[in-house]
C-alpha cells in the first residue's frame, strides 16, 4: 500500500497528491512516469511524475478527473492509500546545456513540465516557459513555474487571465520577437502538442513531446502504447515517453487514444488536460 501523504485540489477536478513510495522517489527523474492502481478492481493508470522528494520518499502526481478511473482516484483523501504504485518508468528527459529552451505546457501538462524546466534551468539553460489553460480557474503552479523558469509567459484561451490566446500564439510571438530557441519541449493534450509541432516545423526548431498513451504494464510487455515515430513502431513506455515531435504520427496517436472511448471515456483519462473535452481548447 502506498499512502497519500498530502492532497491539494489545484483547480476544479484537478488534484495534486504526494504519495509515499521511497523506492520510486529514490530513482525518479524528470520526464519519467509512474503507474498507479487504486484497488483490487482498479486498472493501471499511467501518470507523468510532477515532482519528487528523495528525502521524504514521496512522488507528486497531478491529474484531472476525466474518465472513470481518474474520478475514482480523485475521491481519495489525505491518509488514504493506493494499492499499487510502480515506477519510475520510461526514459528520463535528456537534460543538457542547450542554450535557450522553451517549455510549453498545456492544461495539466504544466505538472510534468515543471521538473523538466527546473532541471533545464539548473543545467544552465535560459528557460522560457509558456503555460496555457482554458481559463483562469484552471491555471495552477504559476509560482512554481516562475521559480523553475528564467521567464514565464501565461495565456488563457478565453482571456480571463493575463492574455487571450493559445500557447501556440504565444510561442509564435516569442520566436518572431526573440529568434529561434535551441529546443522546444511541449507537454499537454495531443492536439496541443500537434499544434506546437506544426509551428516549430515551420521554423525548423527541434521539439520534444511527451506522450501519455494507453498502457497496461508500462514495461514493454503489452505493446498497447505503440506509436509510429519516423515511420517505425516504438513503445511509449520503454522507448519514450519523450519523442522528437517532428517524427511522431499524431493522427495515428489521436485515433489510438480514442480506442476505449465508448468504454468509460477511457481516452479522456489519458489525455486529461482539465479542459474536460479531450483537448478541444488547445486545438
Amino acid at each position, binding site marked *: 500500500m502506498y499512502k497519500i501523504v498530502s492532497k491539494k485540489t489545484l483547480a476544479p477536478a484537478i488534484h495534486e497528491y504526494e504519495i509515499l513510495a521511497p523506492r520510486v522517489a529514490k530513482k525518479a527523474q524528470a520526464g519519467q512516469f509512474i503507474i498507479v492502481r487504486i484497488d483490487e478492481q482498479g*486498472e493501471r493508470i499511467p501518470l507523468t511524475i510532477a515532482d519528487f522528494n528523495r528525502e521524504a520518499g514521496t512522488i507528486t502526481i497531478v491529474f484531472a478527473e476525466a474518465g472513470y478511473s481518474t474520478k475514482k482516484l480523485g475521491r481519495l483523501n489525505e491518509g488514504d492509500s493506493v494499492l499499487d504504485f*510502480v515506477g*519510475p518508468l520510461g526514459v528520463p528527459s535528456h537534460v543538457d546545456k542547450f542554450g535557450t529552451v522553451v517549455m510549453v505546457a498545456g492544461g495539466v501538462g504544466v505538472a510534468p513540465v515543471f521538473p523538466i524546466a527546473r532541471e533545464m534551468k539548473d543545467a544552465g539553460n535560459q528557460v522560457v516557459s509558456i503555460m496555457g489553460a482554458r481559463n483562469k480557474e484552471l491555471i495552477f503552479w504559476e509560482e512554481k513555474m516562475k521559480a523553475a523558469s528564467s521567464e514565464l509567459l501565461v495565456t488563457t484561451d478565453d482571456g480571463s487571465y493575463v492574455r487571450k490566446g493559445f500557447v501556440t500564439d504565444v510561442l509564435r510571438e516569442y520566436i518572431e520577437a526573440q529568434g529561434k530557441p535551441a529546443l522546444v519541449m511541449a507537454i499537454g493534450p495531443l492536439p496541443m502538442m500537434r499544434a506546437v509541432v506544426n509551428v516549430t516545423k515551420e521554423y525548423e526548431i527541434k521539439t520534444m513531446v511527451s506522450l501519455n498513451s494507453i498502457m*497496461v504494464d508500462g514495461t514493454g510487455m*503489452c505493446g498497447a502504447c505503440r506509436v*509510429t515515430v519516423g515511420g517505425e513502431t516504438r513503445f511509449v513506455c520503454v522507448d519514450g515517453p519523450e519523442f522528437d515531435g517532428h517524427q511522431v504520427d499524431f493522427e495515428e496517436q489521436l*485515433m489510438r487514444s480514442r480506442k476505449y472511448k465508448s468504454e*468509460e471515456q477511457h481516452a479522456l483519462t489519458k489525455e486529461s488536460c482539465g479542459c474536460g473535452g479531450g483537448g478541444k481548447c488547445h486545438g
Partner: protein
Amino acid sequence: MAKKIIPNKNPMPHQDPKVRAKNFDEVALGYSKETAMAEAERCLNCKKPFCKEGCPVSVDIPEFIAHVREGNFDDAAKVIKRTNALPAVCGRVCPQEHQCEKFCIVGKKNEPVAIGRLERFVGDYIIDKEAQVEAVESTGYKVAIVGSGPAGLACAADLARQGHSVTMFEALHTPGGVLMYGIPEFRLPKKIVQTEIQNLKKMGVTIETNAIIGQIASLDELLTEEGFDAAFLGTGAGTPYFMNLQGENFNGVYSANEFLTRSNLMKAYCFPQCDTPIKVGKKVAVLGGGNVAMDAARTALRLGAEEVYIVYRRSRAELPARLEEVEHAEEEGVKFLFLTNPTRYIGNEEGWLTGLECIKMELGEPDASGRRKPVPIPDSTFILPLDVVVVAIGQGPNPLLTKTTPDLETNKRGNIVADEAGKTSKEGVYAGGDVVTGAATVIKAMGAGRAAAKSIHEYLIAKGPKKQ
C-alpha cells in the same frame, strides 16, 4: 503372469464444450480419489523409470504413483515436492505428451499412464493442507530473484530449502509471471497459482511486487548496496513480436500479451465491475499456432466473439500448440485457417481495423527447422472481415534489466547468455528460463530455475560461512 493393463487412461471429466465456451471456469475438472487410485494401478513401477528421465525437473514418478495407488496422498505429495514446487500448476500446463508420458513403457502399446493428471490430483489434494514449513537453519546468504514466473519460483523454492534468504522482485502488481498474466483462468485457475505462491512464502521467501529491477535499482545495486550475495534472473520472454505489416497500429490489433494480460491479470472479462476494458468485437482472428494463440482464441470466444479464427501459415501437423489445447479449441468452435498468411491489415478512416488481407500458402521444401517451408500461392489473396486481430507469433526478452547491466553478456536477440547450470558472464549472477532460451514451456523454465538454484547454492557454500 504379468498384470493385465487397462489400455486407456482413466478419462478426466471436462465441462461441456458448449457451456465452457461461455465461461472462464476451468475446462478440465480433475480426478476423484477413486479415479486417481485406479489410474495409479496402471503404472508398472519400472525399475528403470524412463518417465523420470523425460521430466525436466526429474520428479520421482513411479514412487509418487505408488503412494497414490495406496491412497497415501500426503506421501505422494512429499515425493513430488522434493523436486517440483508447483505440482498443481505443472499437472495442468506441462506438455506431458512430449515429456514423462512420451517415455512411459505402458504407452508403447497402449495409452501411457496419465502422469500429468495424477500429478494434478496430488497437487490439488495437498495445496490447501500445507502447514507452516519447518524452519531451516539460515546460511545468512541473501539471494535476489528477478522475476516471479516459473523459473524464479522454482529457483526460490530450492534456495529457501537450503536455508538461504530469498527475495523475489516482480515488476507487476501480482507475483506469478506468465502463470498470472498469460495462461487463462480456464486452463490454470489463478487461485491455484496464488496458493502455491503462498506456500513458498511460508518457506520464508519474500516477494516484492511493483519492483522493476533496472528501474528502481540496477542489478549492481542489488549486489552491492542492497547486500545480495547472488542473483537469479528469470525475467522471461515479455516483449511481443509483431509482424511489421501495413496497418498494424489500427485500433483492434492486439499483441497476445496485451489481450491476455487485460483478460487474465486485469480481469477485463468482468468489466465494468473491474475497471480495465477490452475490445473483442464479433469477428476475431488470432495469428499463430502455439499455446498462446490457442489461449487467445479461446479467451476471445469466452469474451463473446461470434467467430474466432486461428490463422496459421503451416498445416495442422505443424501446429506447435499442445494437441489437447488444439482439440479443446476445436470443440469450443474455434475455426482454423491453415496454410494462410496475413499480408496487411485493413482499416477505416477512424483508425479501426475492419479486415485482414491474407494469402494462401502451400508447403515446399524443408527449412532450417526441419519443417516444410510454407510458400505463398500466387494470386490467392483474400480478405477476412474482422473487428479484432490478436498477434501471437512469439515474444522476445525484455531489455530493461540487461540494458542497465553492461557487463552481462547477451546474444543478438537480447537473450541472456547462460550455461546449463545457469551461470552468466557476471560473477554471482545466474539466469534461466525464457530470458535465456527464448519462449518455451513452464516446466523447462522451472528446470532451469532448479539448475541455477543448485549452482547458486554451490557458489555460496564455496565462500564458506557468511561473514556478518
